[in-house]
């Protein structure tokens, strides 16, 4: 079961968890990344640290187990520049396939999976690169639901506007602090929407939805963890389904969502428990 919610600890996470980790201070990021990766090593995963810098090995010196793993090849460091190429804009599908190949290689080499901690700040500085990276975040999130790949996506908060942080955080099942009022993340057969969506945040939801695509003509949204949604939020979901010629299927154990659908006469929306 993947973790969903807000956490301030990076140990004890599963082999397919996907964290968003905005940070203010590089020392703090390095320490958390090292803990996250060391915990992965304990679980038999291969560890990979991706960041910008000249001496990435030194970044991880706080965890002796990691230093040892770096020496014997169970862990590696990769500079951001070499992984993401020269350009600051990723091709979402290609980037996912890079990690998929690396995960497969890790399993073939006898590891239980692959764990990555990356500072992705440099990849979201322009509107185009941000759009592409948001799409990548959703695709990799979907990949992690099915494969033993776990990731900590870190962003240096002082370098990015708050709405950018919110947009990125909203696409992760786990955050390190309150960054966005909701989380829209992948499930095995669609999406899950947790938290709260109202008039203020419905634009952010519409934006987050743009990074996703309905499959097989259905936009399946698990709203079991949704505490609140108003008609603005519901209409954003409905509009995204409609624009993609898909049918909105909402899963919720509570009656209010079905009632809102009925009052709004959204006859093409299916509510399931």
């Amino acid at each position: 079961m993947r973790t969903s919610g807000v956490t301030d600890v990076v140990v004890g996470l599963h082999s397919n968890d996907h964290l968003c980790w905005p940070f203010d201070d590089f020392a703090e990021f390095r320490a958390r990344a090292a803990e996250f990766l060391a915990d992965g090593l304990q679980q038999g995963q291969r560890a990979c640290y991706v960041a910008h810098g000249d001496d990435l090995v030194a970044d991880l010196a706080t965890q002796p187990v990691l230093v040892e793993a770096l020496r014997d090849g169970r862990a590696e460091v990769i500079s951001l520049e070499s992984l993401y190429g020269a350009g600051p804009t990723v091709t979402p599908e290609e980037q996912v396939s890079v990690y998929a190949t690396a995960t497969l290689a890790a399993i073939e080499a006898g590891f239980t999976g692959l764990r990555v901690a990356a500072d992705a700040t440099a990849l979201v500085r322009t509107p185009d690169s941000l759009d592409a990276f948001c799409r990548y975040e959703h695709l990799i999130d979907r990949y992690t639901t099915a494969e033993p790949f776990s990731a900590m996506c870190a962003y240096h908060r002082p370098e990015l506007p708050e709405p950018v942080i919110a947009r990125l955080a909203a696409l992760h099942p786990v955050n390190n602090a309150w960054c966005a009022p909701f989380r829209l993340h992948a499930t095995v057969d669609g999406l899950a929407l947790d938290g709260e969506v109202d008039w203020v945040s419905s634009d952010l939801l519409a934006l987050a939805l743009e990074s996703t695509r309905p499959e097989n003509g259905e936009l399946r949204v698990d709203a079991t963890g949704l505490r609140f949604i108003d008609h603005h939020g519901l209409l954003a979901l409905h509009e995204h389904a409609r624009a993609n010629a898909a049918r909105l299927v909402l899963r919720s154990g509570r009656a209010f969502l079905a009632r809102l659908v009925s009052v709004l006469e959204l006859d093409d929306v299916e509510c399931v428990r």
Partner: protein
Amino acid sequence: MTGFYHETAFYGTDDDFLTIAVPFVEGGLRAGQPTLIACAEKNTALLRGALGHEDAVIYLPGADHYSRPADAIASYRDIFGGHALAGATQIRTVGDVPHPGWGVPWDWWGRYENAVNQAFAEFPLWGLCPYDTRITPPEVLADVARTHEYIATVSGEHLPSPEFGNGLPLSTPVPDVLELGSPRVTLVDATPAAVREAVSAAITGIRLTEDSAHDVVYAASEIVTNGLSHGVGPVRFRLWSDDSRVLVTVTDQGAGPADPLAGLMPTTATRSAGLGLWILHRTCDYVSMGREEDGFTVRVSIGGSGHT
């Protein structure tokens, strides 16, 4: 006859009620017109007694039909639309619209009587709304005279109402009895999320079903959103409660919606504007909205008996 012929009648005795309503119903039946009775229990019983066994009459239990004005408009439009589609050239309906004389707050029913002039305009409809002068408060009678184009009399006349469309606003909504006490929550220019949090905390311990508790939070969020997005600040949110009922109000300094259908029918102009108010009118036990002393106020009551 085409269009909506919206008529009222003022009666002071049961006999007068029957003198006006029975010929109205019988006339419809004789002409083969779909004829509906949506009266309160007592008037329904009086009419059943006077009409005898009439299979053709369509009875709608008044208490259910007139539980909420937005529901009544939606359900009437379904019924009238069905008859019109089936070829009816004239439909008749007689109904008891609730008011404080029946123990029901008036504001949203006053807006209903005003709105149906537009909401039913497309149907070949003769609607009779009789009011019992023994129990109807004067401010209600004044609104009724303003919102009905015709008045039926005991002598069988159908006179134009001199007050109809006189341009005066409807009566000012009456504050809820809970407002005599101090509000338990007051927030000014707060975000919908902050309002929801305060409301959730405040209603813990009040006897509400899970659905009603959610309705309170939902209503609070929507009326604050409505004030912030359409009103003029400051937007003041307040909450009162007793042990089983919650009242929330939002007051802003704007004029409120100009459309008399606001809240009572879904707006078609833009998909979202006014939808919040419409949802509240279909889920809450009472919604008032109008200009009051300190600004434009939306007032929502949930729980308890549903009435103030």
